[in-house]
């Protein structure tokens, strides 16, 4: 078994990306993401066949990632809040050109400049469409440092397989949390899966033509990509059921809110209350079945909690419930002040 290390969420993510075979990173400093950029700046340019560039902006960074990935390399960027907004055009181009990339959003407050405190306010932006024109990224919502490291490692494979953007959505809390983590081994860069559509590994010797916007093939391509989204929704949505087997009151939450909520739920369980948690692990594709299949005879109440105002995640849960007669409510705040264990506990007690 590999050795466990104690690492900060942002650093574990950065190190795990290197191990997954990330050859190129471009990024621009922004709290609470900066440690990822700093970690990779310190390491990458000394590693053979890898490069780090501090972009002059997020606009530049995402387009550097596009160029690097489009011409053969596993590539990543990381940002937060308004930085992600600046990357929207580039992410849309990645989607259109079907160039894979891993993009990390260490969420901070918003809208506007917001604050640097943790938030889940980018939920709708990231899960519904990361830019103009309409498209999806595959979106992970980790809630521990270990999960962050594992997800980013897997993200590069998913991105290559589906030629898509894979997002890792953490937040300032998870990014700065220090936990023990077991990292996966370094991948041999030469043994990474081939990307026949990039010039380097093109077996047919055809010219690399990474473009988009050719009307005759656009609709056909859009339909093909839509089928991929349907497959993700059918087969790849992931969810954690925590103490839900006999639960009469269920809390739905993702990311760091779910993590905090587990403490409250354990406490209430110890007192004998039938309470549990549903935690979407992929937030797109959304684990619809976890809610659609709830037993309305057993579950008395479903409550969603999130660090965002107005509520966003709540709307996905509501849609997934599909009108099932289970009372649904929301408790959310965000905007620079996270939900605490105590207040989550208090809210849940009110439903018992």
């Amino acid at each position, binding site marked *: 078994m590999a050795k466990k290390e104690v690492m900060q969420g942002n650093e574990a993510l950065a190190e795990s990306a290197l191990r997954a075979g990330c*050859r*190129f990173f*471009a990024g621009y400093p922004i709290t609470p993401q900066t440690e990822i950029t700093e970690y990779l700046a310190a390491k990458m340019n000394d590693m053979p066949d890898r*490069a780090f*560039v501090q*972009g*002059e*902006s997020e*606009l*530049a*960074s995402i*387009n*550097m*990632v*596009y*160029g*690097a*990935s*489009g*011409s*053969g*390399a596993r*590539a990543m960027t990381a940002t937060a809040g308004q930085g992600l907004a600046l990357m929207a*055009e*580039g992410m849309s*181009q990645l989607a259109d*050109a079907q160039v894979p990339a891993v993009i990390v959003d260490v969420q901070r407050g918003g809208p506007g400049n917001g604050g640097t405190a943790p938030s889940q306010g980018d939920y709708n932006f990231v899960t519904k469409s990361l830019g103009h024109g309409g498209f999806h990224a595959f979106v992970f919502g980790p809630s521990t440092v270990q999960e962050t490291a594992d997800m980013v490692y897997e993200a590069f494979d998913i991105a290559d397989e589906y030629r898509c953007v894979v997002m890792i959505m953490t937040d300032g809390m998870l990014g700065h949390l220090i936990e023990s983590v077991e990292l996966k081994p370094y991948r041999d860069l030469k043994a990474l899966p081939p990307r026949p559509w990039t*010039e*380097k590994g093109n077996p047919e010797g055809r*010219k*690399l*033509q*990474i*473009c*988009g*916007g050719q009307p005759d093939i656009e609709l056909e391509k859009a339909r093909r990509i839509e089928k991929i989204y349907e497959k993700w929704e059918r087969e790849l949505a992931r969810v954690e059921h925590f103490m839900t087997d006999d639960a009469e009151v269920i809390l739905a939450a993702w990311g760091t809110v779910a993590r905090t909520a587990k403490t409250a739920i354990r406490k209430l369980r110890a007192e004998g209350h039938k309470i549990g948690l549903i935690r979407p692990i992929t937030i797109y594709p959304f684990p619809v079945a976890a809610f659609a299949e709830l037993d309305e005879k057993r579950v008395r109440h479903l409550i969603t909690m999130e660090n965002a105002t107005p509520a966003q995640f709540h709307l996905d849960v509501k849609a997934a419930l599909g009108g099932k007669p289970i009372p649904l409510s929301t408790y959310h705040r965000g905007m620079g002040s996270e939900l605490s264990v105590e207040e989550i506990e208090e809210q849940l007690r009110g439903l018992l």
Partner: protein
Amino acid sequence: MEKVFGIPEGMNDKKTAFCPGCTHMTAYRLIVECLNELGERDNAILCRPIGCSLNADGSFDIHTIQSMHGRASAVATGVSRMNPTKTVMSYQGDGDAISIGVAETLYAANRGEKMTAIVINNQIYGMTGGQMSPTTLIGQRSTTGVRRADDTGYPLRFAEWLGQLEAPGYVARAALYTPKDIMQAKKFLLKALRCQKELGRYSYIEFLSFCPTNWGVQPKDCLKYCQENVLPVFPVGEFKSCF
């Protein structure tokens, strides 16, 4: 009989969507010819912008990556860092390189990326139908107004500016006007590409180009128009050379 002029290898005679008298295609031809002469055409990657250059679709055989408007130099940075043995180029309009993408163009130059930026300066936004560009001349009409120094500023002499930076190895401006100008343009482009390939440095080359359609100048009158109006503002020449 010896054939002295024809379509170079790597181009075809497909009809393009350029307007009559447009010189964008001359730039493409020079790129293909120079890459052929350097034996680099198969080893080259061209980052294309959004702009009238798209009208060349399907007429040349070079690896291309389509970039968003203004971002070609950033895309080329990513390509170049991951493919240091390739000849990496960006092809950009004046609006693309000097307005919306000015930061990306400037920073790629200042970092000394191993690439060649090829900028088509036609003093107008061609593709969107003739709006004011960063190089529109004082007194020149555009669909967004006449350029007046007091409210829209002066045409930006970007080549002169980049010529003062430390990192670039080669910075020049040439015209795609007369056969003599075009021969000089080719000479400059060869140097730019060699500077990148042989010395691993950044090159910038600006090509002065006709846009009869949006200038409202007949193709036959473009040369005179440019000699009188464009060349005094945008002199041709080398602003920095590592050779």
